[in-house]
């Protein structure tokens, strides 16, 4: 399963950015006020730092990966998360993403066997620029 890739495309909508910042209670104006974002040098409002994970989830890609890996949702915990930022995500962007299963490591502990699965997703925008790389480490309790 290591090296398995999942491709998906995601349209960045203003409304999804607003829903995420509202649920977090993040009132930074660069995420909802175009003038404030322009004053910081952006062409429009931008997506907050954890936004790409919305695409990973809402596109169904993460659940597809769990299904292919035969990992039941009820046994999975999110262990670690990392983002590396290259350029901003803006409303109207079309993101092309590739999720790859980077590693699967089995560890035996006091509470039983666990599989650590590392999923890496690289997002590229419509200008063919890499915008973000995210890595998600999940644990399946066996």
């Amino acid at each position, binding site marked *: 399963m290591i090296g398995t890739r999942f491709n998906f495309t995601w349209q960045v909508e203003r409304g*999804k950015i607003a*829903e*995420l910042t*509202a*649920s*977090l*209670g*993040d009132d*930074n104006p*660069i995420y909802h006020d175009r003038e404030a974002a322009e004053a*910081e*040098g952006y062409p429009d409002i*931008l997506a*907050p*730092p*954890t936004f790409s*994970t*919305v695409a990973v*989830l*809402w596109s169904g890609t993460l659940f597809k990966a769990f299904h292919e890996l035969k990992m039941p*949702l*009820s046994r999975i*915990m*999110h*262990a*670690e*998360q*990392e*983002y*590396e*930022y290259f350029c*901003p995500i803006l409303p109207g962007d079309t993101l092309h993403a590739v999720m790859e299963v980077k590693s699967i490591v089995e560890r035996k502990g006091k509470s039983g066997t666990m599989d650590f699965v590392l999923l890496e997703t690289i997002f590229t925008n419509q200008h063919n620029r890499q915008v973000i790389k995210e*890595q998600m480490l999940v644990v399946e309790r066996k």
Partner: protein
Amino acid sequence: MQPVFETLRVGDEVVNLLKPAITKDQLVRYAGASGDFNPLHTDDETAKASGFHGVIAHGMLVMGFLTQAVTTWIPKRLLRQIRVRFRGITRPGDRIVVTARIDEKRIEGSSGIVKCSIEAVDQNKDVKVSGTFEAVFPLPS
């Protein structure tokens, strides 16, 4: 005011964000916003069947608090990388405080790199999420 690289010192506490208590309503909103509909976060019965007292917060909700705190301190464009580990269960009613500290400063070409450690704790100082982030400050030439 944007922080200035030259004035930052290793050991400085640079972030301090106190979030209002997490509510069940917020978990439902976050589920809808994020697309994570695992019922562990929205349905008490499911959470109890999994051995919890009731619903627990999405780890990514708390990570969202961390990145909110960071991009309150520095403009988002300076944030190059953030990595966290989820350490403890967060529940409705928990009041999360995010703090960060400068661990390292160095100059790379025309940029000032600042590495920080960051963590989210609850009202009992239990650590929920911890990690590191790196900011890149352009230096005047």
